[in-house]
């Protein structure tokens, strides 16, 4: 069983009264094996977040299938062993950091939460601010708290949407170390990014998404045999765009 299985996924967003439409996904298929770190790369607007939201049942596909640990993503139980860091998340501002984690842990049905919450506050390095309200947190601290909530249930599959977006270089290094640590534990990680260099080193495989279609997919070694991943990325996207203008 694959950790993540996406088959021929289509998604179109319609504007008010269907007067406009955006094809966010045009038949995407991806599978991620258990224990893998998988990178979904692509420029802004490529459809990365849309794909992730469909996987988690936050948005619904028009066509195709999305499975998490073998379960259809429309089934809430598919998310039991999944952690998710949304792209622009708003944690409950009015709660203290530890209570925000405690609240979200309850939604996983966790009965013993205290030690897990404490452990995660330590892990992401905001333990000394456990009693501060989320609204007093900087962007970087919120991102750390967001990562902590994604790990609450000790997930088998971790889905991170642009995890390094609001982090300084030190924070990015921490995330990279964390990913390697999770990989050692056998966690499957699905990570999306429009920035390349920082994650290419930890990914086992990457796929490049552009305007709702996969341009390529493979191991980082395969793709970077001749050129850097960045060059591959830029060339593929330029190529796709020049094809369109013809």
């Amino acid at each position, binding site marked *: 069983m694959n950790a993540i299985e996406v088959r021929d996924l289509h998604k179109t967003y319609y504007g008010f009264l269907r007067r406009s439409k955006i094809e966010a996904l045009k038949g995407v298929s991806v599978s991620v094996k258990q224990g893998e770190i998988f990178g979904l790369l692509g420029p802004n607007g490529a459809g990365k977040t849309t794909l992730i939201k469909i996987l988690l049942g936050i948005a619904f596909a028009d066509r195709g299938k999305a499975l998490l640990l073998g379960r259809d993503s429309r089934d*809430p139980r598919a998310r039991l062993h999944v952690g998710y860091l949304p792209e622009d998340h708003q944690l409950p501002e009015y709660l203290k950091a530890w209570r925000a984690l405690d609240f979200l842990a309850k939604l996983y049905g966790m009965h013993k939460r205290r030690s897990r919450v404490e452990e995660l506050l330590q892990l992401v390095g905001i333990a000394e601010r456990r009693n501060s309200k989320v609204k007093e947190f900087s962007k970087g601290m919120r991102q750390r708290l967001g990562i902590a909530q994604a790990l609450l249930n000790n997930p088998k599959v971790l889905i991170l949407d642009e995890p390094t977006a609001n982090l300084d270089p030190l924070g990015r290094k921490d995330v990279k170390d964390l990913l390697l640590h999770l990989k050692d534990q056998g966690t499957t990680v699905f990570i999306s990014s429009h920035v390349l260099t920082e994650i290419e080193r930890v990914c086992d495989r990457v796929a490049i998404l552009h305007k709702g279609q996969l341009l390529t997919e493979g191991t980082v070694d395969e793709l970077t045999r001749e050129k850097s991943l960045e060059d591959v990325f830029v060339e593929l996207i330029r190529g796709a765009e020049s094809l369109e203008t013809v």
Partner: protein
Amino acid sequence: MNRALIFSAIIEDSWRESWARRASLVVSLIALALLLLFAFGVGVRLDEAQPDLVRVSLFGVELRVQTVFKATFADAVELVALGLLNPWGIFLGLFITIGLFSGMFVRGRIDLVLSKPIARWELYLARYLGGVVLVGVTTMLFCLGVWFLLWLKIRYTDLGLIWASLVLVFLFAVLYSFAALLALVTEGTGAALVATIVLWGLTEFAYARDILRPLSPILGSIADALYYLLPKTNDLEIVTARLIGAEQLLTEASSEVASVGFAFGTSGLFALVMLALGIFVFSRKDY
């Protein structure tokens, strides 16, 4: 087991959010001020000769009416409390809870919740119940306060006001089911609040059907249709007045209730349909 944990977590979160946003604080202070006003502003002196009668004073000034029956005094106090709660308390409750409800269903915030192993209907229903619990507890505490002060002042023991407050919470829950659906569809607070007030107005309009029918058959039929479809706000109000034993203070014409069961049944059905619609829409919505 998990479902109980999830529901209680979301209800508790609504509670905390409302206090943190000062909405609950303001409402509680208003309620407290009213109770204090009653506690210290309204004085009662028992009539020694006749234990059924009391002399009432307002801020130390004795009223000109020499004495009133204890029961009449209690009815008047309870009627004032009901009049404050319906419509003003319910309106305030809607104002606050619609904001709480729509605030949850925002991109970025809802993602954190939807990505947990909970079903859409659970989230919708739990958040709805959070609002009902918030308004319910506040209303009950206020009525308990009034009841307790009445007991202190004249040893009044009738529990009618407490039962009446439950009916008001039911009325709120019915209106709020409609408000929640609109808050979801319009993704905001303002339109939902206005629409709910309009609905409330329409339910009252429907009671004019007996007057309208002779004037215009079409208006009469519209009022009839509205009467059968919409919640019975007026009937429920009369039920609350009956519970405190003050129906004689209402005018003759307005004190008739078609049937208490019919009023509760159709109102409850309306709420169930609204909730089902809300869950149907929410279960198909992309965030």
